[in-house]
Each structure stands twice: as C-alpha cells, then as structure tokens.
C-alpha cells in the first residue's frame, strides 16, 4: 500500500519573498523518494481549493524521516501552503512519478535549472554527490536574490555557473542562452562537452526554457532529460488530465501522462507545442 501520509510540519522557512522551504515528517516517503519524483499536496483543509498541488521532492533526510519541499507562491494553493507552521498537518501522496535516471559514474553531468526548477534538481545533485559524481550546474534566475542554494550546491562538490536576467550576478541573460554559449564554445574549442562524450543534460524550469534547452542539446547531439510541469488532477494516472504530447504510438505522436510516465521525460521524446 502506498501511503497517504498525514505529514507533520517540522518547520517552514521563507528563504526569499514568496519562496519557502517546507520540512515535513514523512519517513516512508523520504525512504522511497528518488530525484525528480513529486508529492501531491493538499494545501488547505477545506473544499476550496479542491485539488492537490504537485510539488517536487527537493531533498530528503532519511535518518530524520524528513521530506523537504521548495516552492514559490504561485496562487491560492501555494499561498495557503505557506501559512502552515510547525505542528500543523499536511496530507501528502507520494512519492509519485518517474524521476531522473541516475547518471553513470563516469558520465559528464550538466544540470540546467531555471528559477524554481532547481527544486528537484537540488535533490538530484545531492544524490549524485553521494556517488561522488560532480556536475556543472547552470543556474538561472531573474535576479541575484533568486539564485538559490549556490553555496550549498558548491559545497557538495559541484561547479555552479550562474546567470541572471537582469545581470545582477553572473551571465547577463537567460540560463538557456548561457548554456547555448557554453555548448557552442565546447564545440568550437574542443572543450569539455563533445558529441560522443558520455555527457548528459538534466533540465527543469519554465516550459519556454525547456523547449530551448531541448533544441540546443538536440543540435549538439547530447542526450538529456527534462521535467515537465503539467496541470494535474489525480497524480496517479487515473484522470488523464495531465496528458502531454510525446513521440511514439501509431501516428508518431501520442499523449502520455505527466504524473506517471513523467514528470521527467527524455528530452527527445517531448513534442513541444
């Protein structure tokens, strides 16, 4: 039986305006969770809003039985969620979905995160660090204050290349632009990423950014995986509301369910609208 956990809030920290890290006691979920998976969260206790909200698992502490979420207040559900304090109870379903595949130990790992997209990739970076794999992390945000967890990521052995839309830190532009330049340079100068390399890209962020990322890596011939954000109903594959277009099937394009077939898909399989 998969748990519907009534998780106790351990603590909740606002780490920037509208951005929260929520620590929940849910040992079974912590135990089972893999990077890229999500929990389906009941944000309030009344019939409005009605549906759960999908939130990536951002980190776990298996010893303490903790599941940690990192989220941005986007609307009513997440606003309610942010009102929870230590001792409150939140209903969680999970871990759900198909996460990131774990890279081979000798692989060249490139992580591209836009905005809140760092949420699940942070967990991914934690987990590969345990296997002593280090990654190049391209971290994009609107502005310096929203470049979250740079130091923590560096401390676990990864390299971080930041970008900001307003140029307040690092590369001035989007993280897709930054990554494109990086890949182009690699190509030209025989640099670190080449066709045939055992490189792999892991991306999460707004869909515009992921579409660009997919184009860039397709052109460069690098495989990759991206995590999609679809509106979800059930989260368990029953309602067919999270349909997203993927290559395959009889007509070359078929609907797949982001909640169980994803949210992480091989970049090359996604059919962008």
């Amino acid at each position, binding site marked *: *039986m*998969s748990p*519907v956990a009534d998780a106790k809030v351990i603590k909740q920290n606002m780490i920037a305006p509208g951005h929260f890290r929520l620590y929940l006691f849910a040992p079974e979920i912590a135990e089972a969770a893999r990077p890229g998976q999500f929990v389906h969260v*009941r944000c309030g206790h009344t*019939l*409005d*809003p*009605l*549906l*759960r909200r999908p939130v990536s698992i951002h980190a776990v502490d298996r010893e303490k039985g903790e599941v940690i979420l990192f989220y941005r207040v986007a609307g009513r559900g997440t606003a309610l969620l942010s009102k929870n304090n230590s001792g409150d109870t939140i*209903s969680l*379903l999970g871990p759900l979905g198909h996460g990131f595949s774990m890279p081979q130990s000798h692989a060249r790992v490139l992580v591209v995160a836009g905005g809140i997209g760092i949420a699940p990739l942070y967990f991914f970076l934690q987990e590969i660090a345990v296997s002593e794999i280090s990654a190049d992390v391209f971290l994009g945000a609107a502005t310096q204050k929203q470049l979250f967890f740079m130091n923590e990521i560096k401390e676990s052995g990864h390299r971080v290349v930041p970008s900001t839309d307003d140029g307040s830190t690092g590369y001035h532009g989007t993280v897709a632009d930054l990554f494109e330049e990086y890949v182009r340079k690699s190509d030209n100068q025989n640099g670190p990423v080449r066709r045939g390399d055992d490189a792999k890209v892991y991306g999460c962020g707004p869909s515009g950014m992921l579409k660009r990322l997919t184009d860039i890596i397709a052109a460069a011939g690098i495989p990759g995986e991206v995590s999609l954000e*679809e*509106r*979800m*109903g*059930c*989260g*368990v*594959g*029953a*309602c*067919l*509301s*999270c*349909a*997203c277009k993927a290559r395959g099937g009889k007509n070359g394009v*078929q*609907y797949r369910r982001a909640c169980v077939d994803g949210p992480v898909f091989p970049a090359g399989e996604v059919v962008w609208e």
Partner: protein
Amino acid sequence: MSGVKPNLSVNVGGILMKNPVTTASGTFGFGPEYSPYLDLNRLGAIVVKGITLLPRTGNPTPRLAETPAGILNSIGLQNPGVERFISEALPFLADYDLPVIVNIAGDTVDDYALLAEKLSRASGVGGLEVNISCPNVKKGGMQFGSDPAMAAEVTRAVKASTGLPVIVKLSPNVTSIVAVAEKVAEAGADALSMINTVLGMAIDIKKKRPVLGNLLGGLSGPAVKPVAVRAVWQVYREVKLPIIGMGGITTAEDAIEFILAGATAVAVGTANFVNPRATMDVLEGIENYLCENGIENIDELTGLAQKS
C-alpha cells in the same frame, strides 16, 4: 443494536454489490491506478473509464481546470478502444472479486449496440453503464442524453445486444431529467446512474481565452452536489428503478444524502483525486451511520427523506 453489523449489500438492477459504494467512470482509471491505496475488493463494484469502439486520443490540453469546490474536465473519452480494453485492462480486474461495470460511449446507436455485444462476450464484465451524457465529445455523448426519445433508442439497442444488466447514465443538462429517466425506464433499462457532469466553462483572464483546450467542459465535484441530490430526489419519485447516485460525494455524509434522497448505491468521482481512499472513508462512514441509527439494512435508508 450497535453490536449487529448492518447489511450493506444492494442489488442494482441485477448487479449484486456487497456494499453500495462504487467509483464514478473516468475518475478511477481501470483499477490499477488506485490499487496501491486501497483493497479494491472492498468496493461494492468498480466502474471503469468510458470505452469506445475505436481507440480515442481525447481532447486537446489543457483538459482540467479547478473551479470553486469543483473541477471542469474535457478529457474527451481518451481510451484504448474496446478491443484493447478487453485484452489489456480487463484481465487485471479478473483477480478481484467484485462486479466490473463498463461505461460505454458511442457516436451512433449502432456503436452502443456493438460495444454491448463485444463486452457481453468478454469474461469478467458484470454490467454496462451507458454513457449518453458526456458533454466532452462532439458526436453522440450528451446529444443522446438530452433527447428522451434518443435516450430510449440507445437503451433499447443496448438491451437487445446484451444479457448484462444495463445502467443508463443521465445528464443533468436537461430541462427535465425525469422525462429522460421515464423514457429510458420504458425502454428497459435495469438501473439509472446520475449525474454526469454539468456543462460549464472557465476563462483565463490573462490569456483572454477559455482555459480548456476544448473550450467547454464538464463540472464535477462538491460544487454540483446539490444539483445531483435534486436529480436523484426527482427521479426516485417518478421512476421505479434503482439509482446509483453521484456528483460531489466526498464524505459518508454526502453519500447518505444521496441514499436518503433515493439512491440505492453511490459512486465517488472527483473526490478520489483529492483523497485516494475516499471510497473507503465513505463506506466506513455509511456503516457507522447505520449502526448509530439502528438501521439493519441499507435498503431501509433509500428514499427515506421522501417519506418524512
């Protein structure tokens, strides 16, 4: 009295259910999706997602919008078609001991008849629910459900093609649901289920266009409960067929409202998305209610509010 376990079993037009709690078509997949969360054998029956003759890819996305205490959906009957349903989905349910009710939808009367025929030959089907009320498909669907004569024709065609119990699922999007129910009863339906979703719409004010890819959608969830209870109440008074009540049931209290209004059984739909164990909570709550009220037999509850 409180020591005695009440008798929860019901007979819905020939479908024997060990308790009155089933699932609403399209909200519970084909069974495997929710089997990690509950023991399917504890359900009175399972009603699976709507099946058509040929596979359907469904409607364009977005297909779901949240509304106050409800949701709008425009899934559009995405399903693998009856053949693959029989070969791929049915076997899973064969391992369970509960009636499998298959929800069927067609573009023409013949489609319905053919579906009924094919499913009658498959093993492991316990009944058919005829969906003449889906607001999310262009052809057929609600058209059949909003015209009493058409509804009757579909019912007759299905009855002629199967020996299985036939439940006809009614649409609330009509001037008189009783008029449709009466014709469907005359045409030989064994039971009725109600309500399908209420036709609705939401508009994205940022994009200045409808939220759903299919523009209109079907409203379900707690918001529609009063409409559904009313439908059951009205039909129970006029038509002597067992009713599966549904529309916004999230708790046992909700389910009991339907039973008091006239439902023999109840189906949990949208609430599954919120609480995967909603059917079990409803079941346990009904049992407690019967105990507390000293009612030995669930049948005694059906329509009781009509008698006050």
